[in-house]
């Protein structure tokens, strides 16, 4: 076995260097400001959770969890998402104090990967959870907040596609002959395998009216139609009614230009029970984030209240947003030892003016010119003897 070199990091882990750190900090503060003014309260949860509580309930597959064992032999996981820990805290404590809860987070999450670059195993996520409100207005608020947040990062070319787990499952159930067939078709839609969907429908040997309807539905639904266009495929359905009122609210609020309805949208996350959505932007090859209503997750924690929310991946937001230029007036004050107090006075003054000041003695460095090259302004307190 080869030994580990000192510059190596575990697969998928990244270092954040100072210039990137400043930019991420800007993203964080922009986002925090925006969510804070909407009454979302920021929350922090532990990085490590029990596998039996958070690990199992999480939507992230088992193989992608980082697992550890504590001294009592319990299996622990590094949190793979923030929704599950927040659902745990909310159901066990917060909901007893106030309902509904509007919670926000900016946190690193961990998902193991063994493949290749471009997929960090640890990354920051920013998002909100609105817990304890079952109304369509809660879902609208979450979508509008996601859109405002994306706009707040100066991303202009983006789209939010919204679907509904209930509408899709109704259609799949109505036009197939068994539960397995519907599940199989749903799996293919999760993978967005439209070729496979067509093949499967034909292979099921369904009555012609059913298979024709399914194929026509897929053909039409992937073109992002209006809600009216897919009405003919669904019998009177509460979920569709719900989506119509959601669309009306988003229209009235002036968000219609950013949204599209996609009734083939499906998630591998079984706890998404209602509306679900994904955020895409040009500039990143991967979705910026996703969200939806996840009443099913809270039920796993023994609570009957509804919950909805979204999370954005900060690394992808960073890719999609315009380049951030951070201009700082960095000042270097160099001093000879006997002029320490005099130099310190100047430094204090400059810092009070809000300048970023580095205070460095000549004694501590060898290559003075090389250090000076890193700063815009250099203020020197040289030894008087020289």
């Amino acid at each position, binding site marked *: 076995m080869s030994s580990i070199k000192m510059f190596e990091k575990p697969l998928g882990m990244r270092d954040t260097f100072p210039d990137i750190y400043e930019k991420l900090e800007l993203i964080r503060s922009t986002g925090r400001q925006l969510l804070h003014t909407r009454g979302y309260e920021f929350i922090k949860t532990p990085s490590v959770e029990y596998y039996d509580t958070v690990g199992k309930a999480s939507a992230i597959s088992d193989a992608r969890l980082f697992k550890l064992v504590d001294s009592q032999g319990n299996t622990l996981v590094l949190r793979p998402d923030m929704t599950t820990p927040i659902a745990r805290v909310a159901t066990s404590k917060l909901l007893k104090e106030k309902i509904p809860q509007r919670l926000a987070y900016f946190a690193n999450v961990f998902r193991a990967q063994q493949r290749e670059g*471009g997929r960090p195993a640890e990354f920051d996520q920013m998002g909100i959870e609105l817990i304890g409100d079952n109304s369509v207005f809660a879902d609208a608020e979450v979508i509008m907040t996601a859109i405002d947040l994306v706009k707040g990062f100066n991303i202009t070319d*983006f789209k939010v596609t919204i679907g509904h787990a209930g509408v899709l499952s109704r259609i799949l159930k109505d036009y197939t002959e068994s539960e397995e067939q519907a599940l199989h078709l749903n799996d293919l839609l999760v*993978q967005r395998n439209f070729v*496979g969907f067509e093949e499967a429908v034909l292979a099921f040997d369904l009555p012609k009216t059913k298979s024709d309807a399914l194929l026509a539905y897929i053909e039409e639904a992937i073109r*992002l139609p209006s809600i009216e266009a897919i009405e003919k495929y669904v019998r009177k359905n509460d979920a569709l009614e719900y989506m119509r009122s959601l669309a009306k609210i988003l229209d009235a609020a002036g968000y219609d230009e950013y949204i599209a309805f996609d009734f083939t949208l499906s998630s591998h996350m079984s706890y998404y029970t209602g509306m679900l959505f994904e955020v*895409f932007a*040009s500039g990143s*090859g991967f979705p910026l984030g996703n969200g939806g209503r996840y009443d099913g997750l809270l039920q796993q924690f023994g609570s009957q209240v509804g919950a909805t929310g979204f999370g954005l991946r900060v690394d992808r937001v960073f890719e999609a947003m315009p380049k951030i230029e951070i201009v700082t007036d960095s000042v270097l004050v160099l001093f000879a030892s006997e002029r320490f107090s005099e130099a310190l006075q100047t430094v204090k003054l400059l810092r009070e003016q809000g300048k970023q000041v580095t205070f460095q003695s000549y004694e501590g460095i060898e290559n003075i010119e090389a250090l000076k090259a890193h700063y815009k302004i250099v203020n020197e307190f040289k030894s008087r003897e020289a």
Partner: protein
Amino acid sequence: MTELTIAMPKGRIFEEAYEMLLEAGFNLPEEVEMSRKLMIEIPEEKISFILAKPMDVPVYVEHGVADIGIAGKDVLLEQRRTVHELLDLKISECYIASAGLPNTTMSEIAPRIATKYPNIALKYYKGIGEQVEIIELNGSIELAPMIGLADRIVDIVSTGRTLKENGLVEYEHIAEVSSRLIANPVSYRMKSDRIQDLVTRLKKCVK
């Protein structure tokens, strides 16, 4: 019109797919010079082609540096990348099968399977309840059973000639393969008009 980047596999599939695009009415030069160029730009249609190894097409598409691509179903099954599979172009049709020396059974202890497709092979044998060990090779897979490296091979078969010439017979049919049009999930949304237009036009040319 937005720019569209298409990842294409080099070689025969490129030619067949290019023919289909011409047939679908895209304004492309009749002949493309397939020298050593890796990118071809068609300014009239705002399309650029990336020429990649067949195995690499889904990589470019998944990372979004190509909006769409043409990839074999074998590669898609093997790599399971997050891309949308939009259309079966029904070109370069073949299938994946297992093969071995005639009239042989697999070894009782840990039978060995040589293949270029370790994931497909493992999934198939798991599915039928066979416990096998996979040996990954990069080419000339037919050698493996002949010289006793493996009991079976899992590979693509188009005419069956290579198998026959090396004295092997086909045992199990595993999956159908043909070239598929795939799309990056973000491009699929952000450039949906262009991609839908392409799908509709190509669909008419599928034979």
